């Protein structure tokens, strides 16, 4: 039997990432000082960015698809990777978690996300998901002498493994029903047969499993604990990367495989989205730890992004992708400020920050405004696009609910601003500036304003 050699051009970015991750593991054994590995990681991300536009095409018999959809998501993953490396360089030294594996695992996790975004087959989707998930479990627990970090890792692991077995059961039902795992062929099969009970069951199982990955309610319980316990740089990474990858596969599976039974899954997703926005925004009100608050805020943001999927139109899908790109910048920016402050994990640590560190307070203000969605910041553009797509698709009532929850969110974001500007400081805030952290904050602030003023750079 003669097996033709597959065309490797579409997978070049993933190959570069995987090879670089393995090389970093070897360099880790030789190098005593780990900071060159961070530089290497950024170079690899740069090289991958260079190869992404030329990777158009399908390969491995349609199992791996590189199209404009996956490319946009890969762009988000690269932004996420580069910003995470920049904010973690000095932070992990301070936290005594500077292992070479840190960078290697970041690369492996990002490779997994890229494979997920490009999957044309449920087998590839599952493998990409596991590569991403297994790497992030370890990253969450990388401070291995810290009990909180251990606890975050074990909670993330147990619920993550549970959700991926649900996904597998869903896949096996779909396979039995349609005789294939190829997303395009499943779509063609379902177009002829329509809805059936096993299909609904597998759709629910798959939706539940993806909801775990994007931390949508009622499958969000792990997020606050994991976000609080994990090192802050990894929290920033996890709140953007795996979430965006989860949305990438939601788009692939629900718009690809389940296109013809849209009426059935829209109902499931509307319930999840409303509950997610409610839980995220309302529980965030009572948090005292800023990482937990940002965890609930990220749950709420998953709810908004889900609205783009619910719209069921191309415009909705684009709005969701743009939203995730914008979310990457503003959320990592906010976490960068938390890292910049020596003591910045509790919300009361921000009391009177504007008096002792006016510049830091002003930057935090920008990110909080952007997360709330106040113009001229990027957050406004993201929400505006989502709500527009939703209204055009005929879900005006859902847009109204989302706007109400969005105005609730102003309370907890602006509370931090109020603490910074209107309360007296308890003690002088200590900051840990470093060139890389400064660069990351600079990029995020610049992008938050640039996207807010010229939205065309991320749309299209």
């Amino acid at each position: 039997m003669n097996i033709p050699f597959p065309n490797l051009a579409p997978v070049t970015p993933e190959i570069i990432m995987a090879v670089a991750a393995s090389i970093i593991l070897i360099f880790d054994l030789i190098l005593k000082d780990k900071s060159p590995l961070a530089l290497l990681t950024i170079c690899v991300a740069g090289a991958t960015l260079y190869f992404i536009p030329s990777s158009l095409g399908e390969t491995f018999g349609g199992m791996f698809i590189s199209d404009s959809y996956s490319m946009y998501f890969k762009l988000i993953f690269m932004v996420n990777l580069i910003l995470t490396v920049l904010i973690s360089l000095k932070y992990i030294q301070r936290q005594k978690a500077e292992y070479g594996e840190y960078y290697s695992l970041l690369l492996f996790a990002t490779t997994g996300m890229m494979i997920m975004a490009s999957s044309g087959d449920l087998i590839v989707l599952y493998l990409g998901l596991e590569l991403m998930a297994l790497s992030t479990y370890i990253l969450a627990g990388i401070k291995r002498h810290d009990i909180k970090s251990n606890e975050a890792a074990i909670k993330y692991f147990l619920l993550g493994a549970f959700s991926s077995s649900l996904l597998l059961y869903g896949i096996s039902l779909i396979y039995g029903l349609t005789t294939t795992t190829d997303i395009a062929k499943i779509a063609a099969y379902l177009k002829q047969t329509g809805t059936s009970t096993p299909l609904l069951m597998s759709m629910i199982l798959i939706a539940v499993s993806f909801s775990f990955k994007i931390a949508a309610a009622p499958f969000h319980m792990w997020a606050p604990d994991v976000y609080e316990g994990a090192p802050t740089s990894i929290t920033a990474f996890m709140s953007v990367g795996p979430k965006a990858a989860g949305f990438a596969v939601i788009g692939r599976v629900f718009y690809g495989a389940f296109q013809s039974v849209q009426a059935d899954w829209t109902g499931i997703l509307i319930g999840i989205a409303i509950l997610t926005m409610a839980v995220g925004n309302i529980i965030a009100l009572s948090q005292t730890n800023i990482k937990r608050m940002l965890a609930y805020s990220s749950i709420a943001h998953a709810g908004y992004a889900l609205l783009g999927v619910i719209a069921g139109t191309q415009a909705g899908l684009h709005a969701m992708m743009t939203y995730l790109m914008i979310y990457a910048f503003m959320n990592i920016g906010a976490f960068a400020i938390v890292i910049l402050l020596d003591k910045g994990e509790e919300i009361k640590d921000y009391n009177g920050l504007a008096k002792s560190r006016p510049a830091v307070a002003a930057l935090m203000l920008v990110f909080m405004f952007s997360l709330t969605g106040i113009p001229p910041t990027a957050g406004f553009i993201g929400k505006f696009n989502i709500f527009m797509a939703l209204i055009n698709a005929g879900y005006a009532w859902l847009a109204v609910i989302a706007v109400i929850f969005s105005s609730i969110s102003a309370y907890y974001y602006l509370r931090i601003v109020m603490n910074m500007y209107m309360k007296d400081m308890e003690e002088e805030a200590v900051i840990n500036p470093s060139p890389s952290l400064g660069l990351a904050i600079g990029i995020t602030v610049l992008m938050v304003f640039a996207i807010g003023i010229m939205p065309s750079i991320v749309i299209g």
Partner: protein
Amino acid sequence: MVPLNWYIGLSSVIFMIGVVGFLIRRNIIVMLMSIELMLNAVNISLVAFSHYLQDLRGQILVFFVITVAASEAAIGLAILVALYKNKAAVHTNEITEMKG
């Protein structure tokens, strides 16, 4: 020949045992075992479908599932060992550093 329905019934029963075990047991080792049970239930149904449909995709997926399950167990137990070194606990009721 055993009909397909029996295999699917067996697989769904084992899967449910795994789900219920995961949800009600509080020992992390038992929870890990429940996850393995769920994965193996999926394997049974995949192999049964694969044989019934005379299609190899299902069996290929089973190989991947077995491999991933092995690495998952390795990582899960490693995290558990790290946790146990800091705090001698395998019971989820005792692991409550973070709440709220």
